[in-house]
């Protein structure tokens, strides 16, 4: 139940936030996020100092767009656990224990940064923006149509499922999940309803001249802002990737202190 509620809430959040700020082209967003993730992932496994500099992107984005830290931590948690699980063996098997700890910390940081970057993207793209971006990137029309329809019927089916589960729970108190004797019929019924629904949807499309795929129509974005956004961030991310900002800052501070003395 809670999971379904959360999914429905997520869809609402995505739609809300994407309606708010849509002057930057979705392809710019996608590009910057992917470059950031590749930059983060490409760090050497002991280069924690360099990697730490990548936090700047996240900090600036969060402050700029007022992204809730609380929601973000909820997102990070599962990936944090996963990376810890995979990395936990590093201290045992790496060259030395300290090298292992270092590589584990790098892995965990990478995990956190990547999820956060994806989350920032998620707060800026609704389904319309995503489909529009995918069409520009020449994704097959069929796939974009599937995505649009999926988004439309997610909530319908999730609510259907919620009702079915409630009806089930009210008659089977104290059960943790679905009893195995009802696996087939419960999911099967949901499946049949979905297929029937699909048939009706298809009828409705047919009656309005459907010819195989949807057309996604251009939306208006601010070109200058979009290009500027992508350019500035790409340069900044590459700079962060190449120069160990924190080490350089430390060195600079020492130099200034030395000069002062």
């Amino acid at each position: 139940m809670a999971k379904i509620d959360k999914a429905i809430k997520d869809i609402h959040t995505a739609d809300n936030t994407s309606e708010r700020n849509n002057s930057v082209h979705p392809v710019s967003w996608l590009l910057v996020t992917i470059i950031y993730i590749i930059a983060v992932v490409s760090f050497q496994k002991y280069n924690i100092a360099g990697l730490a500099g990548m936090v700047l992107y996240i900090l600036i984005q969060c402050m700029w767009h007022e992204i809730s830290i609380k929601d973000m931590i909820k997102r990070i948690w599962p990936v944090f656990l996963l990376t810890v699980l995979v990395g936990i063996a590093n201290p045992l098997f790496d060259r030395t224990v300290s090298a292992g700890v270092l590589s584990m910390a790098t892995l965990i940081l990478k995990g956190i940064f990547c999820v956060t970057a994806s989350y920032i993207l998620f707060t800026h793209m609704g389904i319309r923006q995503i489909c529009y971006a995918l069409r520009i990137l020449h994704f097959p029309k069929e796939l974009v149509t599937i995505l649009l329809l999926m988004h439309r019927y997610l909530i319908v089916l999730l609510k259907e499922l919620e009702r079915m589960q409630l009806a089930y729970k009210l008659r089977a108190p104290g059960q943790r999940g679905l009893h195995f004797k009802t696996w087939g019929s419960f999911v099967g019924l949901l499946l049949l309803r979905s297929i029937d629904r699909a048939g009706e949807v298809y009828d409705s499309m047919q009656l309005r001249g459907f010819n195989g795929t949807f057309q996604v129509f251009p939306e208006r974005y601010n070109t200058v802002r979009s290009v500027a956004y992508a350019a500035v961030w790409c340069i900044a991310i590459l700079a962060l990737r190449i120069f160990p900002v924190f080490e350089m800052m430390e060195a600079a501070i020492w130099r200034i202190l030395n000069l002062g003395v």
Partner: protein
Amino acid sequence: MADIELRGVNFSYQKGRQVLHDINISVEHGKTIGLIGANGAGKSTLLKLLVGLITDYEGIIEVLGQPVEKKNLSDIRKKTGYVFQDSDSQLFMSTVYEDVAFGPRNYGYSEEIVQKKVMEALCKVHIENLKDRQIYRMSGGQKKLASIATILSMEPEIVLFDEPTIALDPKNRRNLIGILNSMPETKIIASHDLDMILDTCEETVLLSEGRIVCQGKTKDILKNKELLEKHDMELPLCMQDRRTNE
């Protein structure tokens, strides 16, 4: 010539289970016809036959002078709108605008004309303000109006309604009846809501177990308590009231 003409139509989903028997209906241009009958009487099937969602029937069906056959379907569907019982099946795009624009776009109109048509359709059902609303966030009444707008944007000559007032609250139902009465198109309304039929249709066809039992002036049919009860229906509420008052 009649807009819709059915002569001797028989239909069965499976062999031996006939759904419609010898249906003869003729609907003049601009008329509104009510289609009433108990659950499973064949109302929805009849509507589906008219737009060619089902094609393997026997007899003659002509819509706007064209027989309902595979080769004429795109022409007929362009001029015939079908409002589904479940708005969630009718509205499959994410926002109202996208959905109402779906039909005109598929018929290849330019984006300006599409926009004009969409706005006109939305104005006709008074939901201009819902243009950019996500569909899953709308109430049942709003969805019904939006699904009518998706049909109106294609500027049809005939509109078919399958249970339009189902699951609407009294206010939305009133509003819908007003809109139905303001539409100049030829209409067929299939429903159990006999009060609504009384308010919107001059003529009515009573179906029972796939046969036309009675066809004529709405007032005459809906007054006939015996006839209605024989075919598993009741008098419209307004007439029941009048009786008790008398």
